[in-house]
């Protein structure tokens, strides 16, 4: 498992460079990638892939918001490399592989692909909305 988490850090740093991320976020990206994947693996011990993706997405988005605040950079810059390990590549491949075999399982994998992608987006949206609500609340409280 530790090896897998290190792999996530490596993959996310590679992905960040591939996506032309600013140089100074690379250490943070490695941290985000490994933490996010650790959260996924831990959650996956008791939940299915879809729920684990949601939980890991919440962790990654929350950390991205904190890092963005800290470094005065847009949240997206952290978020996009951070969620890379969650991208439903496995489910997409299984869909194609089963489809080629002519197996009915392809439908189930296709649904899983969409649900995982949806869960990534939903977890981002939940945290974004909470942060926005919190900002409004603190602004009103100070006036």
């Amino acid at each position, binding site marked *: 498992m530790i090896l*897998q988490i290190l792999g996530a850090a490596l993959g996310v740093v*590679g*992905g960040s460079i*591939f996506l*032309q991320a600013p140089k100074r976020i690379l250490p943070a990206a490695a941290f985000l990638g490994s933490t996010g994947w650790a959260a996924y693996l831990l959650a996956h011990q008791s939940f299915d892939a879809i729920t684990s993706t949601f939980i890991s997405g919440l962790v990654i988005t929350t950390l991205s918001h904190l890092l963005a605040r800290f470094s005065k*950079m847009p949240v997206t810059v952290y978020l996009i490399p951070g969620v890379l*390990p969650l991208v439903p590549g496995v489910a997409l491949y299984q*869909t194609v592989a089963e489809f080629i075999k002519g197996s009915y399982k392809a439908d189930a994998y296709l649904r899983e692909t969409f649900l995982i992608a*949806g869960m990534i987006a939903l977890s981002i949206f939940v945290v974004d909305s909470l942060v926005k609500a919190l900002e409004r609340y603190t602004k009103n409280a100070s006036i």
Partner: protein
Amino acid sequence: MKKVTHLDVAMLAGEILVQSGSETHRVEDTMTRILTHAHSESTNAFAFTTGIFATQTEVGKEAQTLIRRIHTRTLNLNAIAQVNDISRKLCTDVLDSSQALEALKAIPNQTYPRWLHDVSLILLISGFSILLGGKFPELIVTSLNAGLLVLFFKVTDKIDANPFIRSALGATLITLGASLIQLITLKAQTDIVIISSMMPLVPGVIITTAIRDTLYGDYMAGTSRAVEALVIAASVAIGVGMGLRLLGGLL
């Protein structure tokens, strides 16, 4: 010389953001912030994934509207960060509008040298093979396969290939590569090798952004992006499928 208005700055900022793959919500927000800073009577900014519009009415003048069509989109996080920084500086009066326009024009296309970009692809792919639970044999085969993909990208960039064909052929290549390399070398799990090699082709970021756009109420941008993601995913799927079929015939 024509005076640089906030409208010009907002349009260029919006264009760079859309081209860099930013979510629509952020594009409109940034454009509106820049336009509002000009103390105009009313402003409106509207963004799609394929074009942007902005209208500004200055006090005592007629309304001005600009449209810009956007054809190409890639992902460039550094550009998003820099546009954000420049718009922040403009709105706190550190920069005036002509300085901001110059700064926006100076944003580089490439943050990293070409070779590092190639190496990053190999890093990304081999990192994913470990992440998916691959061991030493998978790592070796995947890295070789990644090298193959880097070469393929170099060729397609040179001939400026159609993106659909590019990802389909790329996916076929990595599927064939994964199995052939393994035939002559080691016993590795082909699944892991193929999945990690197709990571740079899969439109994961686009799908996520599409759903985010939709949840924010940007339905037009969300659906057009979703279609884009589906087309890319379909081409990758077709490519992998062709590869697997070919292998089925060969082996």
